[in-house]
């Protein structure tokens, strides 16, 4: 029996995995991937079955745990945002070398247009050099179907499978036909082939040869994949290669049916024979793909091929039905035109996001900016989270933001160069994600930096997921070796601002490492907890 439901792309993929016999989900929260784990956590069948569905400290630990589960014969998945894959890059690339013993999905959600990210990197490039196959759903139903398909593919070739999502699928709802029953889990079993799981050079050299062969087989597999198809057309002036959700924007332009030949690609490696067939067929071929020009780059020596690199489609930002329309019109010299849309009235002002009223980060920034007024050239090294908004008005308090955890290590490097004051500001979840190791570097050299951990007891920006360091931050800092007299704690409250300022001044003036933990629960999660109590 199948049931129709409305699901986000993230949720459809998670449900597909649960119904395909998933045994464990691992993740670190990150927009637009967060709802995958949240769906597994909220699924009553998954809870009854006791499926593993807890947040990990970061994407690297999550991926390694998922691989450990696969080693024991159980189906696993790990989900993250695209930049999370940078953190997990080491185990990801090497998991192709060990191979998978049971179906394993590595879900990476890209964020073209940077709705909530610092770059537009395209996860397909990682899979390409790791020699890992990729599934790229174009709609919610495919996201659901690809979970079971991906597990089977992973088990057939004994290799992890990447599922690449993009914001507009992750966070778009559509109807999905789904099984009502959860399929059985795998039996616990160890890999038959044991050598490849120990990646010492001798074993790796043997395995790498095998992996290259497997990748050739995967290319053959992609030629006959149900998700890749070549549909001939009646008009061969133009042909299309459309991948993932790029296919939808193309179809949107031709509600009565596409007159041109199209190759839809949703499984990689790129099916080269099908591409050659299309190139044979059409006078010109436009590549429509969300993200960076991955397929187009492979075909850059083909004179017929047009797309992002040749300026038909924008090189940055996500695709839209309008940018695709414009590109197709340009290629066909204007046969699809629409009337000019109205302009946005001039009186409409930008409305940037801001820290919530009553948020504890506000108190930290108020005290910090006051304290730093006493110095000639203070620099504040920021990090990733709600408190990144301290860059904007009214605080304008941050000089750098790079990646998860970089506040501490960049402050250290700046101090090494002679910068004083060098202040790092980092949230609790980001600290346990990637701040702890950098702090150890600073401790070992007693670097003259002041690290402010603005602890709101949650992972706030992504909607309030559990934070791995809650209740443990002081012990972690002391355990790493922070001097007890320079580990200070205070409540992030308006009434404490003077005291916070005083504390910050004292520690900035200390010629060595200090950590100030400023703590108050996120007001969003506090409200939720209060409402729950009332019920």
């Amino acid at each position: 029996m199948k049931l129709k439901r409305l699901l986000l792309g993230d949720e459809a993929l998670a449900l597909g995995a649960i119904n395909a016999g998933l045994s464990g989900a691992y993740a670190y929260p990150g927009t637009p991937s967060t709802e995958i784990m949240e769906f597994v956590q909220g699924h009553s069948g998954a809870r009854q079955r006791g499926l593993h569905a807890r947040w990990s400290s970061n994407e690297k630990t999550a991926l390694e745990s998922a691989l450990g589960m696969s080693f024991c014969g159980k189906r696993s998945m790990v989900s993250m945002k695209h930049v999370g894959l940078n953190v997990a890059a080491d185990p990801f690339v090497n998991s192709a070398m060990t191979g998978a013993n049971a179906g394993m999905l590595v879900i990476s959600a890209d964020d073209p247009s940077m709705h909530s990210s610092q770059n537009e990197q395209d996860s397909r490039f990682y899979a390409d050099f790791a020699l890992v196959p990729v599934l790229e759903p174009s709609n919610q139903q495919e996201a659901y179907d690809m979970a079971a398909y991906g597990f089977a593919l992973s088990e057939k070739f004994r290799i992890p499978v990447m599922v690449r999502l993009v914001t507009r699928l992750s966070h778009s709802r559509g109807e999905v036909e789904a099984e009502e029953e959860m399929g059985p889990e795998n039996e616990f079993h160890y890999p038959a082939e044991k050598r490849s799981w120990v990646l010492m050079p001798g074993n790796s050299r043997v395995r790498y040869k095998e992996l290259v062969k497997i990748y050739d087989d995967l290319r053959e597999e992609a030629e006959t994949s149900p998700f890749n198809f070549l549909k001939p057309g009646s008009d061969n002036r133009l042909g299309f290669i459309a991948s993932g959700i790029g296919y939808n924007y193309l179809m949107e332009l031709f509600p009565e049916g596409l007159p041109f030949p199209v190759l839809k690609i949703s499984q990689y490696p790129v099916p080269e024979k099908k591409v050659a067939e299309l190139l044979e067929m059409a006078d010109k071929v436009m590549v429509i793909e969300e993200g960076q020009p991955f397929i187009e780059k492979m075909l850059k020596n083909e004179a017929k091929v047009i797309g992002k690199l040749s300026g038909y489609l924008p090189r940055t930002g996500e695709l839209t039905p309008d940018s695709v329309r414009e590109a197709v019109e340009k290629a066909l010299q204007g046969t699809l035109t629409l009337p000019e849309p109205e302009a946005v009235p001039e009186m409409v002002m930008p409305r940037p996001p801001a820290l919530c009223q009553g948020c504890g980060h506000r108190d930290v920034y108020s005290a910090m900016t006051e304290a730093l007024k006493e110095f000639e050239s203070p620099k504040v090294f920021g990090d990733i989270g709600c408190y990144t908004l301290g860059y904007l008005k009214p605080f304008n308090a941050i000089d750098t933001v790079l990646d998860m955890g970089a506040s501490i290590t960049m402050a250290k490097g700046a101090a090494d160069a002679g910068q004083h004051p060098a202040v790092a500001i980092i949230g609790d979840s980001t600290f346990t994600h990637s701040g702890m190791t950098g702090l150890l570097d600073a401790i070992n050299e007693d670097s003259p930096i002041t690290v402010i951990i603005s602890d709101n007891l949650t992972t706030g920006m992504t909607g309030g997921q559990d934070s791995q360091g809650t209740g443990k931050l002081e012990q972690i800092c002391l355990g790493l070796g922070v001097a007890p007299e320079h580990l200070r704690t205070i409540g992030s409250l308006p009434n404490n601002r003077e005291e916070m300022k005083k504390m910050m001044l004292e520690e900035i003036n200390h010629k060595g490492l200090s950590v100030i933990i400023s703590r108050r629960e996120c007001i969003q999660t506090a409200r939720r907890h209060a409402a729950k109590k009332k019920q």
Partner: protein
Amino acid sequence: MKTDIILAGVGGQGILSIATILGATALKEGLHLKQAEVHGMSQRGGDVQSNLRISSNPIASDLIPLGGADIIVSLEPMEALRYLPYLSKEGWIVTNTVPFVNIDNYPDTEALMKRLEQTGRVVAFDMDATAKEVATPRSSNMVLLGAATPFIGLEPSIIEDAIRKTFESKGEAIVEQNLAAFCAGLAKSETVKK
């Protein structure tokens, strides 16, 4: 039928509950639906929108093309104007007139109302006041849904069923408040519509 709707507002105002109710309605009616939302950073008091497409035929794109929206449904007047490029020439704007001022350069309210009027096909009134009158101030999004209903192409009675179902876990009183707000919005829409 085919209706393309832009839902607009400020992060935290609650446009997504409107989307949830219309989604449930569409599913029950056997219609196709796509609804793209915004999560993450902009939810912190920034401008937010959702593209909601309902159709009796399968829908290709998750996003509405420029000039393609049949209605802009907004909880905030300036936010309604932000999406004007997406409104079709025959499209309507249905918006709350209560400004949400969290920026220092918010435009002059009188000029804003005038500009809204200029768009021609607009239903704009103080939905907070209507909500307060018949239910609670928090139900202004249901007033908005009611006001938008004549333009959506779905029967009010089936939307009412979806409202009932969406709020039923919160108790009968909450259901009744939301229904009252919806009906008041619907009635007012018919009188304000020019």
